[in-house]
């Protein structure tokens, strides 16, 4: 990646917060008031841990590796970390976590990452370039296609670059709002699809009718022009575009405790 992963820190109380930290803090806030979160691999994992510690102590974190009700005290390096199992209320087999728990309709929020995302919140984590002659072979689907389909709603966390926020996906791994409008509903999917995309620049949400992602909040110190530059489609602003509340000391302190010892820039 040649684009800088972080923008300049904002000159606020959160001046010490990196863009990644703001993204994680804002993602964690999205879990306020939720009961159950199916935590996908990647960036969402640390935000989910943060949400449990700061906002929603009773939030039930469920991982595709089987832990139900995990209570991680540090950001898991992988989705199958021993600590997830050790702190969980129960650890079930992988077939059960997908059948009884996800497909059974028991997940309020699916929390996903993305390598590419389009204006309708469809996600690619499979391949850049043609499928049979890839330029970049990505890890693949994991649990995401069914999380995207079955969770009551989906929140996506992704760094905001023009490589990620693209006009057209090279491959649809996990469905968002499909072609917009009612097209997702027409596929018969149980869940409502992405309701928020949290980036290191701001927050995008689907417009009511079109289901196209529009910018609804911008992080402190970020210019709208930067967001537009790094978005591969002509990004529109919500009528009520707001500025993100900067991270509180509690949020930031907790996040840093959670992240201690974790490799930086990790994708897992």
């Amino acid at each position, binding site marked *: 990646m040649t684009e800088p992963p972080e923008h300049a820190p904002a000159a606020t109380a959160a001046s010490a917060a990196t863009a990644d930290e703001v993204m994680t803090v804002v993602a964690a806030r999205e879990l306020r008031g939720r009961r159950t979160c199916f935590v996908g*691999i990647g960036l969402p994992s640390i935000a989910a841990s943060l949400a449990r510690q700061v906002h929603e102590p009773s939030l039930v974190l469920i991982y*595709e*590796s*089987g*832990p139900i009700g995990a209570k991680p005290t540090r950001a*898991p*390096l*992988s*989705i*199958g*970390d*021993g600590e*997830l*199992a*050790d702190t969980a209320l129960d*650890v079930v*087999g*992988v*077939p059960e976590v*997908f*059948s009884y728990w*996800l*497909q059974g309709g028991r997940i309020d929020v699916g929390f996903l990452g993305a390598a590419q995302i389009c204006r309708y919140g*469809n996600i690619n984590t*499979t391949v850049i370039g043609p*499928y049979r002659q*890839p*330029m*970049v*072979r990505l*890890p*693949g*689907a*994991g*649990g*995401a*296609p*069914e999380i995207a*389909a*079955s969770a009551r709603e989906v929140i996506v966390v992704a760094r905001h670059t023009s490589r990620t926020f693209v006009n057209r996906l090279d*491959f*649809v*791994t*996990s*469905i968002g709002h*499909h072609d917009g409008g009612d097209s*997702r509903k027409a*596929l*018969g*999917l*149980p869940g409502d699809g992405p309701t928020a995309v949290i980036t290191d620049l701001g927050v995008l949400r689907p417009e009511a009718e079109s289901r196209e992602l529009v910018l609804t909040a911008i992080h402190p110190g970020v210019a709208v022009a930067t967001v537009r530059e790094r978005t591969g489609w002509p990004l529109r602003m919500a009528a009520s575009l707001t500025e993100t509340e900067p991270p509180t000391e509690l949020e930031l302190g907790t996040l840093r405790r959670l992240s201690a010892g*974790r*490799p930086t820039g*990790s*994708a*897992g």
Partner: protein
Amino acid sequence: MAALVPLADAVADLVRDGDTVALEGFTHLIPFAAGHEMLRQGRRGLTLVRMTPDLLYDQMIGLGAAERLVFSWGGNPGVGSLHRLRDAVEHGWPEPLDLEEHSHAGMAARYGAGASGLPFGVLRGYVGSDLAAHTRNVSTVTCPFTGEQLTAVRAFALDVAVVHAQQVDRDGNVGLWGISGVQKEAVLCARRSIVTVEERVDQLDPRTRVVLPSWVVDAVSVVPQGAHPSYAAGYSERDNAFYARWDTISRDREPFVEWMRRHVLETSDFAEYLRLLAAEAAAAVGSR
């Protein structure tokens, strides 16, 4: 009935060139020792099946043991890409690798159906995804009661399943606990199976959550730390530093091959491999 045999014998007896093999493990209990032994014995043309191929399959693919990979997520968790997997897919090195990919839910349903003696599994899955267009093993089925259309996936029928577990008891029954993935299903949908364990015990630990009775396993081999750099809950910690180091070891072809030659192909067994790693770690500390 499970025979307690050295791992080299188990692999020699039960794994053949061209087999469809699942070395399963979801972050936890990944059967590295067994995979290394397949490499030492020069197995070729394997179809490798696994939900979450990580370093072990990167190693096997990088040495050209596999011609096909059936999977749902292939990466170095928390670190990044699998360079050898990518090199095989992107540049056909050391040989082309045919990919068949699924979602986790689809793979789990394929294992579950195979374990259940059914030809297919049913799920709400793949809808709206491009995945289904690239495999013949995803189709649809209509509910005879509601008329609703659902996704069908073909059951797995494996030649060999290989898993690592914590314990085998004196009667050859295998017990494991912690994150248990699809290990039970993998063993139950394979014609032949090999289990490596940390330890032989009189009675399985009360923490045991998944039991593989002796009579569904062909061979059990005691290989302490046989999951390294993965872990076995109650016995070892995940070697996260090794996972990070693998990014460097595997990045380029020659150093990868050299590392594998020295650490895997030219060691006699997994214990020697572990001793070599330990000696290197000690030397690294000493040279600081």
